[in-house]
Structure formats: C-alpha cells, structure tokens
C-alpha cells in the first residue's frame, strides 16, 4: 500500500503545479509542491501507521482554498492506512484535489474527489476551514468522528543574529506567498529592529527573484496600505515591488499574514509575547525561531526559521497525533 501511495504521489510530482496552485508563480508552485512531496516518505508513513492498529473505513477529507498542497499529506496517510477516501474539493479551487485523486486512483487506490457539498456518511472527517466551515462540517456529518482544523496563525521570533535569521524568514514568507496558518504573520525580535529589517529586505528581494510573487487578492490592498502607512508614520517601512517589511510597535500587531509582507516588532524581552498574543493565544499555531527556549505560551509547533511552511510528516497536527485523531 505504501508503494502505491508513493507511486501516486510521484505522478502528482510529474504534473505542472502552476495550474494547481491557486495563483502562485510557477517557480513558487514547484517549490511548494516539491517540499510537500519530499516530506512524505515510506519511513514517515510507516511510522505514523505504527502508532495504532485501528483504522476507520471511510474517510472524507474536506479541503479548503488557500494552501494548495494541504490535502496531500492527509490523503497519503488515509490511503496508506487502507481506508477509502473521498476528497471534498473547495468549489472555487478544485484543481489540486482533482489531480491528486486522479493520480492516486490511477495506481488502484480507493479515492475520489468532487465539489459536492453533501458529505455523505463517512466514519471520519478531516476538515479545514474557517469557523463557519468547521461548524457546517460537524453539522452535516453528525455520526462521524471529526479531526477538524480551524483558523490559526503563526509568528517568528528572533533573539540571535539578525543576519543569520533573514534568509530563513524570507523563505517562510515567500513559500505559498505567505498563505496558510503556518505562514509568519510577523517577526518579533529582541535585536536591533533596523538591522533585522534591512537584512530581511535584502532577503525578501532575493526571494522575489527566485520565487516571484503570484496573484494577489485585491481586497487585501486596503490592509496592506494601512500597515505600510502606519509604519511610515510611526517607524519605518522598507518596500520593494512585491514585498514589504514594515517596522511597527508590538501594539500594532495583527495576526494576519499579507502576501510577502513581514512586519517587524521590537521586544525588550521574549516574555512580552505572552501578553501581546493573549487575545489570540488559542489560535497560535507555529513559532519559527532561533531560540526554542523562548517561544510564547500556546505554541503548538516550534521550528527553525526557514521551516515554518514546510512542516514535518508525520507530526502532531495542531497538537494531535494524525492517525489517532481520526479514530474514535
């Protein structure tokens, strides 16, 4: 079963990821797809399958728009576990789900994908989305076991050399154009902010060459201008054609990532983060950092800078063991 899953994923890798990526540039789409597939190995799948012998029979995976690769690891795990899988694709962006199901079905795995809102009667549901979507999934599948993942956000924390941190941070902002709950919404630092921002600006400009920014959602423009304008008034804003590094007060932190924007906030001490993040603590996903001992309370995943958007597989997904989370 593992070999078939990996064969199916190899088929997916051979595709042109651009049309599947929901508007990323071709280079970024390729980098994101390769990073995701590189992380799914026979050893990793076997390790997760070895955590329990129980298996659900029929699983539905409800994918959300935004991070186009997000269904892949779950599809691989569920099928490797011998379950049958239905993928409910986001109606506005079904391409990756359709391609994934086609490639995995082509090697004989029991999987299908569609955009039908009727979720049927699966034994387990893995779902992603906003609060309303999560509530709707629960309501529509009352008899199923749920492993649901709502909205979250992530941050970066730099306590060491800013120059050493910049490249990884810029890569974290570039992959997926800063979409998804593991993208850094902002960088907090106890170091000199101008030095970090300048290094970051240079790295962001390099990433724009290597992984150009793709399509952006126009309605994010007002918030982009609010933040850059506020930074010009209160601090400083370093901007390129398709990126920005505004230096802002910690009180101006908003836990929402904008495409290729990395606000930098100065801290006197990492402990301040607990207070700053308090209103959203229960939605904190990942802290990317050069100081694993200083992460804020509530962090579900801690990783090195440059690895925020490439989570390991298997892992505890939002604090839960993956396979066990779809079992009663």
């Amino acid at each position, binding site marked *: 079963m593992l070999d078939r899953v990996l064969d199916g994923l190899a088929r997916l890798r051979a595709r042109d990821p651009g049309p599947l990526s929901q508007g990323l540039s071709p280079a970024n789409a390729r980098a994101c797809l390769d990073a995701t597939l590189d992380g799914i190995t026979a050893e990793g799948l076997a390790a997760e399958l070895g955590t329990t012998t129980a298996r659900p029979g029929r699983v539905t995976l409800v994918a*959300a728009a935004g991070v186009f690769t997000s269904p892949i690891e779950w599809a691989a795990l569920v099928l490797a576990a011998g379950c049958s899988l239905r993928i409910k694709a986001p109606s*506005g962006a079904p391409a990756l789900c359709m391609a994934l199901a086609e490639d995995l079905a082509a090697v004989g795995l029991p999987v299908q994908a569609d955009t039908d809102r009727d979720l049927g009667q699966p034994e387990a549901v893995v779902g992603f*989305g906003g609060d309303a979507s999560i509530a709707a999934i629960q309501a529509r599948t009352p008899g199923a076991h749920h492993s649901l993942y709502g909205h*979250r956000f992530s941050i970066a924390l730099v306590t060491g050399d800013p120059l050493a941190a910049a490249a990884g941070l810029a890569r974290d902002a570039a992959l997926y154009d800063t979409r998804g709950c593991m993208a850094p919404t902002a960088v907090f630092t106890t170091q000199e902010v101008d030095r970090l921002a300048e290094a970051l600006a240079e790295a962001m400009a390099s990433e724009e060459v290597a992984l150009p920014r793709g399509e952006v*959602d126009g309605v994010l*423009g*007002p918030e982009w201008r609010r933040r850059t304008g506020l930074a*010009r008034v209160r601090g400083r804003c370093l901007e390129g054609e398709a990126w920005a590094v505004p230096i802002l007060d910690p009180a101006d932190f908003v836990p929402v990532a904008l495409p290729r924007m990395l606000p930098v906030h100065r801290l006197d001490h990492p402990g301040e983060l607990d207070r700053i993040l308090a209103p959203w603590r229960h939605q904190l996903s990942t802290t990317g950092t050069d100081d694993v001992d200083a992460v804020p309370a509530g962090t579900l995943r801690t990783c090195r800078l440059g690895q925020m958007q490439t989570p390991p597989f298997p892992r505890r997904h939002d604090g839960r063991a993956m396979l066990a989370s779809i079992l009663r």
Partner: protein
Amino acid sequence: MRAQIVAFLRAGGDFEQTALQLYRWQRAHNTEYDRFCGAAQPTRWEDIPAVPASLFRDLFLTCFDPAAASVCFETSGTTAGRPGRVRLLDTEVYDLSARLHAERCLGLVPPRAISLVPTDDHSSLGHMCRHLSPETRPFFSSETGVDAPGAWAALRAATAPVFVPTTALALVDLLAHGHDPVALPEGSILMLTGGFKGRRRAVDPEDLLQRLSRHLPGCRIVGEYGMSELSSQLWAVPAGERFVPPPWLRVLAVDPWTGTGQTSGQLRFFDLANHQTVLAIETGDQGTVHPDGSVTLEGRLPGARPRGCSLSVEEARAR
C-alpha cells in the same frame, strides 16, 4: 488656509489647484500625514495620497495640536473592535459644508427633527442632523435602540414640516412596530443613511423604500452618505438615485490592490472641507463614479478570499 476653504465653499474655485495647495499645507502642519505621504509629489488631485479611514483608530492625523481639539467624532468601530477618532478644533467649516450642500440638494431643511440617529456628542451624524435641524427630538439611543411608539406618536402629532433622519436599521425597527399610515406635513423630509447590512439581518433597500412610502405617504425620502472621517456629505434625491457630492468634494474609484483609478472600485474621497485633518480619505466602500462626479454606492468591499487556514483581517482586528 481656513479662509481660502471657506471662500471655496461659498463661491467655488479651481478644485485641483486648491486641493494641491491644501495638500501641501497639510503636509506642513500635520506631521503624521507628512510621514504617511513619504516621497509623494502629486501634480493631480487624484494622486494625493489617501489615508485609509481605519488609520484614525491608530493616529491623530490633525493639522493642530490634538490636545486643542474641541470636538471628537468617533467611528462605529464595528470592524476593528475600537473606534476611530476624528478630532477637530471647531466645526465652523464642517457645519458650513453640511448646510450649504444640504440646502443645495434638499432646499430648506425643516428646523424641527424627529431623530432616529445617535445624538451623542461623539456622533458626527448626530452633530450634522442637529446642525441642520436645531429643534431635535431624539427617539434613538445607542443603549436602548429605537423608541418606536414615541417616534410614531411624534410623527402623528407633527403639524409643521419635520426632518426625520434615520439609519436603515433604525427604520426597520420603526416599521416593525406596525402603525397606520401617517401623512406628514408638506415639506417634511426623511433622510435615510447607513448601510443595509447589519449584524442581525440584511435589509432589501427597495423593499424598505416601498414600505416607507406606504407608512409615510407623501413624505420626501432622500439618501445621505457620510462618515466621521469626512466633513462633507453626499445626497441622493430621491433615495435610490445617485449620490451627489458638493463641488468641494471629489470621489475617485480605484483598484483596491493597486490604487489605480477606474470607473468602479474602492472609493476615495477628496474633501476640501477636511482642512483640519487630511483631505484625502480611502474608505472601505466600493462604488461607481459617473462622469458627472455622482456616485452609485455598491456597499462594503468584499472580504478577502480564504488564504488557507489563516485568520481574516476582520476576525483578527475584532479582538
């Protein structure tokens, strides 16, 4: 600069030249706006840097010492959780702007009002209505909502023309307390303002206007568009028609991402009467600007498309 703006309001003038002059004056007297503008050197009014209205939650943006303000209007704060504050030294220009354009669009506004809008000192809407109709009887409070029985009784008792300023949602509450039709004295004006989407329900504007014409037959119904961050208002006469700005205010629709001007899009306002703060304001509203400068409003900008499992701006800023 104030005298020049007052003269423009009274007698007109070259909008572009005055706007650019005011822009330079504001940069010289408004440190925050100067820093916001950075290296901008506009040569057309359309290129004057527009401040997002939401920044009034974070910044003073005054051309004077904020401590000297005698008036502080607050925005509703429904999106970001805390209100924006617009500080003014005084309301001389604000009041002049409101009166001149209201009278231009409506004729004489009845001095007596039966008000269904907020009347507290921090409401720019309440201030404008009180200025237009000094004899105001309030039938709305932010704490208790609409006093529908009281408002109906006042409407029925009216013997002289009345001005009835109301938000769309307050009007829905009023009409929900069913009442026999009331024919208001000739010359009465009902002013409808505010959006048609509330937290509780969405309101169909056409349905509302039809119900209104049944309940208040013969009453003149007009639309008003304004916001705390603007010193001037636009009027739609009758309600449902395009909104007309005064000669000292121009509207630009832009692409919300690039800020490039286009026929329909996110709305920016360039209001010479905003001489004490910033003349160029970027709103969260969208609409179409017609060749004659009038505007068809198309509601709020839609929310951003999902970006994976991350929070939306609205969700995050509401905390």
